[in-house]
């Protein structure tokens, strides 16, 4: 597909990626609840049914049938793109991802493969209930055989989704509804589809490496801006892919900065931030201050905005924590 740049929202970028996949790869199917005729409950798949007909369709409220159906179709050569409206809902059908999709290639030594792409979205939002607010990436990332990414920008939403669809193995693309209809940004369309994996430095810095993923990165970048004013230079690393996980990029950055913080929206305990800190600790890299994890505390995600604001890391809280991290070690030094 010829390269071009368009001003798009995150949702429009996803739509462009789906449209490209459906156009370039006849074996792709796109389905899920309200995905076809209504164009998606968030309007992300608008127009695709009209453009691609029967290959884009609505399903019953049956996540096991949606995911199992995608796997079965993939086993015989299709490339299904299935939507699960909220990551929270994958929990009614997780068997199909963990016991089924993740096993197929390995157990058959490649004789069978399940190249499905599961599009979902997660995260909290003011007023959203505890069953529509979870960040579950650590659960998916713990499962060998799956691939997991969390695009944070319109460009990444386009690029990572295409990488997932083009990949020959199951991939879960976790979007975030809060950014679907935000500011438009120039998005490079077309061009070669990148292979799965690889972190990205969102902001180069020298004092501390702040590892993050998903839309939390916007708060981290905001915090980095504030810290700059305080004379602290943050290197912000967007992991993008949580499986495969670009540990090398983390180590390389930490080797430069000597300090590490991880920030994610998911619960801190047994969250993926622990993997980041553990891999650095194992690496033997010396840190000038103990590493820091910032995420949601042990709590269920409350609906009231005044409560939600208290449990999800905010830019000021991130800035303050990272400031303390750097400050303390500067004194130490």
């Amino acid at each position: 597909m010829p390269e071009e740049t368009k001003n798009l929202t995150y949702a429009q970028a996803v739509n462009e990626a789906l449209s490209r996949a459906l156009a370039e790869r006849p074996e792709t199917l796109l389905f899920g609840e309200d995905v076809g005729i209504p164009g998606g409950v968030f309007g992300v798949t608008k127009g695709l049914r009209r453009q691609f007909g029967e290959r884009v369709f609505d399903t019953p409220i049956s996540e096991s049938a949606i995911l199992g159906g995608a796997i079965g179709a993939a086993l015989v050569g299709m490339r299904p793109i299935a939507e699960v409206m909220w990551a929270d809902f994958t929990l009614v059908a997780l068997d199909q991802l963990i016991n089924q999709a993740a096993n197929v290639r390995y157990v058959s030594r490649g004789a069978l493969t399940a190249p499905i792409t599961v599009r979902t979205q997660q995260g909290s939002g003011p007023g959203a209930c505890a069953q529509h607010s979870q960040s579950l990436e650590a659960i998916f990332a713990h499962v060998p055989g799956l691939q997991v990414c969390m695009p944070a920008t319109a460009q990444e939403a386009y690029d990572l989704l295409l990488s997932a669809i083009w990949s020959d193995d199951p991939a879960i693309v976790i979007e975030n509804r809060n950014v679907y209809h935000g500011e438009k940004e120039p998005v490079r369309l077309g061009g070669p589809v990148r292979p799965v994996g690889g972190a990205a430095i969102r902001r180069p810095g020298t004092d501390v490496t702040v590892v993050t993923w998903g839309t939390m990165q916007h708060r981290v970048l905001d915090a980095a801006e504030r810290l700059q004013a305080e004379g602290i230079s943050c290197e912000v690393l967007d992991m993008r892919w949580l499986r495969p996980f670009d540990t090398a990029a983390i180590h390389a950055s930490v080797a430069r900065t000597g300090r590490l913080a991880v920030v994610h929206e998911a619960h801190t305990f047994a969250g993926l931030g622990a993997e980041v800190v553990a891999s650095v600790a194992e690496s033997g890299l010396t840190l000038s201050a103990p590493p820091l994890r910032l995420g949601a505390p042990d709590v269920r995600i409350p609906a009231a905005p005044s409560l939600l604001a208290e449990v999800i890391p905010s830019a000021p809280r991130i800035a303050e924590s990272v400031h303390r991290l750097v400050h303390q070690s500067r004194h130490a030094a």
Partner: protein
Amino acid sequence: MQNDPGDAGPDEARRRLFTTMYTIRLFEEEVTRLRAAGDVVGSVHLCNGQEAIYAGTCAALDLTRDIVFPTYRGHGWTIACGAPIEDMFAELLGRESGLNGGRGGSAYLSAPQWGMYGENSIVGAGAPIATGAALAATFDNSGRVAVAAFGDGALNQGAVHEAMNFASIRHLPVIFLVENNRYSELTVTATMVASDRLFKRSSAYGFPGVRIDGNDVGAVRATVAEAARRARAGEGPVLIEAMTERLVGHYIGDAEQYREPGELDRARETEPLVRCARELLDAGVTESELEALKEQVRRDVAEASRRALASPLASPDTVLEHLYA
């Protein structure tokens, strides 16, 4: 609004049903305003047009022991159970005085002291839970009947299937109540099932299913009363398919492009409030009596909303509490 003792005359009972339904309607209309004003945030699912199901069911239950498990579309259920609407407004407004201190919000609130055992925002998930409450009734001599309420689209969820089979083989006192408003969010449910006569699903599990006019509050009340009697007598579950219409979007903000032209006009002719009002007048209630009754509800709802708005936001100080005992 609670279940009608029965000693009240038929007119009085009908008056209460109307009051309940009208309160629900005005509550939802006030919520719509609060949402537009930005006082209520997040996705909100209104039940305008489905009020007869909640009022009729709760009037047929004994809420001193019976309990209901609604979905995210549960404001009407909560009001029909008798929860104070001021606390409900407060919950939706994220106030400390909310039913759940703002933890639940519009789509996941609960009022167990009123027999409302919790909305559920996972489609179908309430069915096995209600079935479990009915299971307990076979051991604790409570005489409890549990109502699992869910929508037409929920019947395609595996958990509902498992719950119905489980309840059937143990003859559990649970009523599966389908609020059939013909839509699963933005999708026509009839296109997602081979037969849209959903009450027939129960035959696969060997218990009765019945379709009723869910906008006829009397029919709902009578049908649920009989189902509850059966259930209490140990005769097992019943599936009630209550046909209704959602007069508003799936959620506030829904563009409703899936509607047929004229669909809502037709629906407004058969909606439960208009019908119940007509019945009251036919039964001899005067226009002015009816107007007085409505005026009272208007005042109550406005007052409750004002009070809730004036009350303090949920305090972050206690946000970490109540995760464990």
